């Protein structure tokens, strides 16, 4: 919750006084809102109170409107345990709608209100805290991370070379030379920890940098003091500590750089002429040839030839699918046998596989409840460790020489690893999102995986979701041939599955003017000078005379000329999935279709059907139940998808619905995979957290000397264990089965 503020938001989609009422009411109900005034003319809402901006945006969206927001992508260098602090800073900046920081990729995704915040302001505020870089598409997403990695490697190499000199001289008791060679290790190789600690101090916090700086700094300063006074020196421990921390952190950065970003695969394509080019050089309309065993480099339609294609990248299904002339093929799938000539419809950045990679890289991973709790714990972790270190010194100095007591305290500081705590959740989510993508499930918002547990009702769209969408239409009886041509021509402009099926019945290409679509009802337009209307019975009844039998009717100049019965098939496996889901959830079908077929489907699946719904009614139905998962594919499902607790869009559906969904699946059968993934994620997070806590509770007492003199953990080896722990968490997240 933030302090009292006033925000101005641009509401999209209001066109009347009723809208103003609805929006005002929706905003007024949000917790913490004191006053709201909505202006229809300007489209702005002014809101006073102490509220979360994101709740306002959500409320407006649930009411069926939208808010103008701008997406901002920043790359910032921050230790994972500081996620919470970053969120706090962001919540103090006006105009931040939502923030999502992923410490494993260093990417901060922001949604801002352009009316009160801009990029400059946000970057300036954050700069006080951490180095920030605006993500520049031209430079590539990883440039910042890569530079960071390079600078770490330089630090490590320099650290290793100078440290070996330090060891050589110190073990020959040439302490002054050991001191000289330790200076570059501390000043150059260790600079990132000292400057990080300084920055943390300035912000009145403490993190991993503080611990490393404090442990190495204390060991070094105490040695310098003893060098002058004449006593034991630990230049070796101080230098090795920095070097060992760098070893682990460099490996960790490298792994995360390699693993966290999915790189768009590069394919080569063979043009018809035999010339081989990169797949992004292929243009729409080019014919390319694919031989057995090759990956299909573009999206397109088979022009000639036949073969079997492994589409597991798309569906998770490894059984190959037969493809021949006229079938669609997707980039990234493999031709297991045969030979294909493919007419390109999408290539390069617009191809399916590039879009998939983009969706995975943009997926948000950190807005997870458990993570917030862990972040809170991580914030207290470092101060607690500093207290333990002080107590360790205090207790030991009664029993052993002060210098050894100090080494115990330094070892405690060096052994503690707060970053494993900070990384445990986001890495697990990232790994699970990656794995689900291999099984044909694209998770766009990591939080959806967590929300799955709370889902109570599942509402399915029918056409294209429960059914194949491969609609069969049959004219009811003899019809006017010319009339059918006009109707088919009009339907060719609509993307609805039924319209597509009707448009295929036409043989001529006729020009359509003044096309108008009434979603969920029908279409109207002028074809060859005639007014043509096609749609559902009720729609036609209010526009044409003498409505005949049939599910869909076409009129020319207000007289029915043809009517159709619509038949569609239930997708394979859907029956089993629904039977299974019914055991745990309330399952409902919501469809725009008002024909008897809708009832038939409901009967066959044993599910209640709400039929003949407009897009708004579908959304209202979603609102009337608690914690609804909505599964749909069409333009008419977008509103319901956005309104739902969890929105699941079908991959075969419209772009608009995919944008509205939290998760994208290929078929309802993949819902099982989604639930499995959520369960596995929970297990992964728990394992990572147990590991992180377990590590700390094992090594910190050891470093504090509880088993001394049987086991003694020198500070440098404590540091090595600490830095390797982050590596282990990263590797475990990605490599475990």
């Amino acid at each position, binding site marked *: 919750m933030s302090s009292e503020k006033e925000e101005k938001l641009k509401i999209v989609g209001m*066109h*009347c*006084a*009723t*809208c103003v009422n*609805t929006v005002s009411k929706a905003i007024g109900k949000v917790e913490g809102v004191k006053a709201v005034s909505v202006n229809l003319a300007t489209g702005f809402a002014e809101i006073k109170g102490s509220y979360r901006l994101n709740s306002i945006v959500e409320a407006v969206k649930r009411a*069926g409107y939208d808010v103008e927001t701008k997406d901002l992508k920043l790359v910032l260098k921050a230790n994972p345990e500081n996620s919470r602090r970053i969120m706090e800073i962001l919540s103090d900046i006006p105009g931040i709608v939502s923030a999502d920081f992923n410490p494993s990729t260093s990417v901060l995704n922001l949604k801002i209100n352009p009316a009160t915040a801009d990029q400059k302001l946000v970057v300036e505020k954050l700069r006080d805290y951490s180095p920030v870089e605006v993500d520049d598409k031209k430079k590539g997403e990883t440039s910042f991370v890569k530079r960071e990695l390079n600078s770490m490697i330089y630090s490590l190499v320099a650290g290793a070379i100078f440290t070996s000199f330090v060891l050589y001289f110190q073990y020959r008791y040439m302490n002054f030379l050991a001191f000289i060679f330790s200076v570059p290790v501390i000043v150059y190789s260790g600079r990132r920890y000292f400057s990080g600690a300084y920055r943390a101090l300035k912000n009145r916090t403490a993190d991993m940098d503080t611990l490393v700086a404090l442990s190495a700094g204390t060991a070094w300063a105490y040695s310098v003091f003893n060098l002058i006074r004449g006593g034991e020196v630990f230049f070796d421990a101080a230098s090795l500590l920095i070097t060992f921390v760098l070893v682990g952190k460099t490996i960790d950065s490298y792994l995360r750089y390699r693993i966290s970003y999915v790189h768009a695969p590069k394919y080569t394509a063979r043009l018809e002429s035999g010339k081989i080019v990169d797949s992004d050089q292929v243009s729409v309309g080019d014919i390319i040839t694919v031989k057995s065993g090759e990956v299909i480099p573009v999206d397109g339609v088979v022009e000639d030839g036949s073969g079997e294609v492994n589409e597991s990248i798309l569906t998770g299904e490894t059984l190959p699918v037969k493809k021949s002339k006229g079938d669609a093929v997707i980039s990234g799938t493999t031709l297991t046998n045969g030979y294909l000539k493919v007419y390109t419809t999408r290539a390069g950045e617009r191809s399916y596989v590039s879009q998939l990679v983009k969706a995975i890289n943009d997926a948000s991973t950190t807005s997870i409840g458990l993570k917030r709790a862990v972040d809170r714990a991580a914030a207290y972790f470092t101060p607690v460790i500093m207290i333990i270190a002080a107590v360790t010194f205090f207790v030991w100095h009664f029993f052993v020489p002060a210098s050894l007591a100090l080494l115990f305290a330094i070892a405690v500081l060096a052994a503690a690893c707060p970053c494993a705590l900070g990384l445990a959740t986001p890495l697990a989510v990232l790994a699970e999102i990656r794995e689900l993508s291999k099984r044909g499930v694209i998770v766009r918002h990591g939080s959806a995986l967590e929300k799955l547990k709370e889902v109570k009702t599942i509402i399915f769209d029918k056409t294209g979701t429960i059914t194949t969408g491969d609609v069969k239409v049959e004219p009811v009886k003899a019809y006017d041939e010319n009339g059918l041509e006009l109707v088919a021509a009009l339907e060719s402009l609509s993307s609805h599955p039924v319209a597509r099926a009707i448009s295929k019945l036409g043989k001529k290409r006729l020009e359509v003017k003044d096309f*108008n679509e*009434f*979603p969920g*009802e*029908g279409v*109207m337009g002028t074809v060859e000078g005639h*007014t043509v*209307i096609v749609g559902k019975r009720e*729609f036609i009844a*209010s*526009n044409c005379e003498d409505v005949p039998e049939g599910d869909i009717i076409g009129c020319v100049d*207000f007289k029915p000329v043809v009517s159709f019965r619509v038949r569609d098939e239930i997708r394979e496996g859907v029956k089993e999935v629904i039977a299974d889901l019914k055991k745990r959830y309330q399952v409902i079908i919501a469809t725009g279709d008002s024909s008897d077929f809708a009832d038939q489907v409901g009967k066959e699946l044993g599910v209640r059907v709400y039929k003949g719904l*407009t897009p*708004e009614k579908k959304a209202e139905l979603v609102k009337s139940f608690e914690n609804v998962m909505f599964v749909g594919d069409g333009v008419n499902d977008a509103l319901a998808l956005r309104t739902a607790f969890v929105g699941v869009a079908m991959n075969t559906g419209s772009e608009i619905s995919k944008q509205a969904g939290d998760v994208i699946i290929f078929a309802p059968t993949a819902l099982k995979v989604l639930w499995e993934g959520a369960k596995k994620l929970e297990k992964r997070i728990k394992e990572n957290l147990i590991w992180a806590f377990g590590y700390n509770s094992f090594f910190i007492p050891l470093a504090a000397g509880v088993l001394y003199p049987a086991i003694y953990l020198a500070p440098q080896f404590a540091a090595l264990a600490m830095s390797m722990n982050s590596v282990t968490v990263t590797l475990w997240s990605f490599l475990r089965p």
Partner: protein
Amino acid sequence: MENIDPVCGMRVKDTEHKVLYKGRIYYFCSSKCKEEFQKDPEGYLKSGPRGMPS
């Protein structure tokens, strides 16, 4: 293009809230007005706007 909402009488642009009735397109300010109209299209067209439905 500006149109008159036949239910509440407001000026509205081409919106998604529209109804095709007897071959003519009517635009509405909201889904509420649209539903009101669909209950009694003839009545609204004959007697004119009756104001915002409550």
